[in-house]
């Protein structure tokens, strides 16, 4: 997994590439935690994510909970395979998907 991080004033954009699993999810969580203070908009690009397990979903859910309090969050460029996982877990209704 690699994460590209672009911060512009109070907007944080993260591009997540590769596999987000039990091993890599803590790094994804750290990346969010260390950058989220003062952020009003979090945009997560999943175009190149090719795998997500429950460990990765937990990170997205906790990010959503934080952003519900301090601004908004959207997830974009969700590919078909990842969208399937969002649908079977109800994450398609929790997240704002563009």
């Amino acid at each position, binding site marked *: 997994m690699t994460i590209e991080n672009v911060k512009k004033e109070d907007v944080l954009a993260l591009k997540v590439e590769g596999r987000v*699993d*039990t*091993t890599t999810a803590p790094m994804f969580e750290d990346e969010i935690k260390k950058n989220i203070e003062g952020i009003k908009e979090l945009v997560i690009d999943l175009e190149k994510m*090719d*795998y997500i*397990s*429950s*460990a990765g*979903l*937990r990170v997205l*859910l*906790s990010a*959503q*909970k934080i952003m*519900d309090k301090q601004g908004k969050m959207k997830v974009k460029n969700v590919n*078909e*395979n990842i969208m*399937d*996982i969002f649908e*079977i*877990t*109800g994450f398609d*209704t*929790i*997240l704002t998907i563009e």
Partner: protein
Amino acid sequence: MKELVIAAIKENLEDVLSFVDDELDTTDCPVKTKMQIDIAVEEIFVNIVNYAYGGKTGEVKIKVELQDKHGLKITFIDKGIPYNPLEKEDPDITLSAQEREIGGLGILMTKKCMDDIKYEYKGCNILTINKVW
């Protein structure tokens, strides 16, 4: 059929997934199916790591059996405390983000990604999953 006996520790997740993927790579298994199988394998293995041996390290035996190159049966055997994950209630996936709890998703994902899951206890936990493509 191939068999792997490995310590139930998080660090071995990659080896477990490679063991299963190596078998899948000998077939024409679609990318999406491979992802679904990997998810089920990860969730079950991590569950065993976290709960089976109550903080101590134990082993897990994983058997992989291809069926006519269009299906796969995977069996997980551990000698930890008896635990049937299928008895666990599914989380309510209609709740909002604020109401949803972090956790409980692994078994739900396993059920939805696989065609069939079976649990037996015969002096050890035996969990068998099946997927056909």
